């Protein structure tokens, strides 16, 4: 009796290796994912841009003399942030949980936990930064436009562009936190999940 293996070519001996995280691949994956889910991407960007525009608009608006009016604006800002946060959190959560199967699959192909977590977080961070950046631009232009309309050439004297870098940083950070906080927990859970569980989760 002939053992079947004798008819096969002998594969060469191998030694176990170790995969490492490839940051460029992580980044490429994140960008690819954003590109392919473009409608969701745009919607999220829009939500964040609105919040960030509002934030920067209020921060550069001439100081309100009336404290009641100021409180009103702040309340609106708070509400706006809260609403957009809920929206973004929800979108990110959905976006990740819908991807469990895909995540399980790429883990079978050699994705490290860090790759899964990394690509999702980079994706979220890009969303947040781009959204906040656009909002920053829009909010500044809006403040400028309204200022010029009201005060003409004297607008710059009234608008508070002092410490603009700091304010812009705050707006960007807000956008970044909105998306990354929303994505962090589900992404972390997904990245730790054994591939098979991830795949059986969602049909």
């Amino acid at each position, binding site marked *: 009796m002939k*053992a*079947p*293996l004798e*008819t*096969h*070519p*002998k*594969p060469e*001996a*191998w030694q*176990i*290796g*170790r*995969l*490492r995280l*490839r940051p460029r*691949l992580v980044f490429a994956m994140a960008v*690819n*994912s954003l590109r*392919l*889910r473009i409608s969701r991407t745009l919607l999220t960007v829009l939500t964040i841009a609105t919040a960030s525009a509002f934030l920067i608009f209020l921060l550069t608006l001439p100081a309100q003399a009336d404290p009641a009016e100021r409180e009103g604006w702040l309340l609106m800002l708070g509400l706006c942030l809260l609403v957009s946060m809920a929206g973004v959190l929800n979108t990110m959560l959905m976006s990740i949980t819908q991807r469990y*199967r*895909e995540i*399980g*699959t*790429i*883990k*079978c*192909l*050699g*994705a*490290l*936990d860090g*790759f899964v977590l990394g690509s999702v977080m980079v994706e979220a961070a890009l969303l947040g930064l781009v959204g906040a950046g656009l909002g920053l631009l829009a909010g500044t232009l809006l403040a400028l436009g309204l200022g010029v309309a009201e005060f003409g050439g004297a607008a710059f004297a009234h608008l508070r562009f002092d410490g603009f870098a700091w304010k812009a940083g705050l707006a960007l950070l807000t956008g970044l936190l909105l998306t990354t906080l929303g994505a962090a927990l589900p992404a972390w859970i997904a990245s730790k999940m*054994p*591939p*098979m569980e991830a*795949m059986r989760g969602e*049909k």
Partner: protein
Amino acid sequence: MDRFENAADGGDARREMSPSDPAASAAVFLEGDARADTTVMTREVVMEYRMGMAVIRALDGIDLTIPTGEYLSIMGPSGSGKTTLFNVIGGLAKPTAGSVFIDEIDVAQLDAGELAWLRCRKIGYIFQSYNIVKVMTALENVTLPMLFAGVPPDEARDRGADILRRVGLADRLLHTPRELSGGQQQRVAIARAFANRPAIILADEPTANLDLRTGEEIIHLMKEMNREQGVTVICSTHDHKMLDISDRIVWMKDGRIDKLARREDVAIEVSHMAEK
């Protein structure tokens, strides 16, 4: 001449890696230097799932030794533990007890990076539900494991296109799964599984969602790759016709190996059954 080659091949270095001494039991199935030619070995593998109070024993002491280059079919009723066995062999799930050796390396000893390497380079998975990444093209699906393995993107693309051509999808490289039929998706999955020239292909009911003819094509494709590349194929199926091309067949029942036979012996039995 032959003897020299065998001697040169006898992986002495690898022999020392094996923690226990599983070779003794391997010899039950194989003559000669069993260890150098053994790709998968499971020893008393037990897998339990906890469902609230109840404990389900999906695998109940599996001992299997699978020689390099073998085409092994796994049969068994639904719930007998086939998928669970695949997951355990493929390093996708940790067994509750027992060990799995892939080429004499104890999978339980591997860290995350090594396990990822094993999944990426040494094992190709084919699933019943294809599991093609939906947002990627056929070509991107096939190149992904190569990129994980560190193959330069250009080379990965060329190789990916070659393999897709090999499985008969030359004109579907840039299609996404939505634009592919089930059989075509499964071909992409096969191309993807073979992308890194693995040592083992784990195919869990790869034809269950396909019509008979497409299923046969898929199985024959796997068999061809098995012959050409000498890769070990472990394939579960409900279809008796698929047994013809297997070297050996394992029947599972309630998480145990019910029966294990070479194809030659089964052929007799099947014809015997047909007579009844």
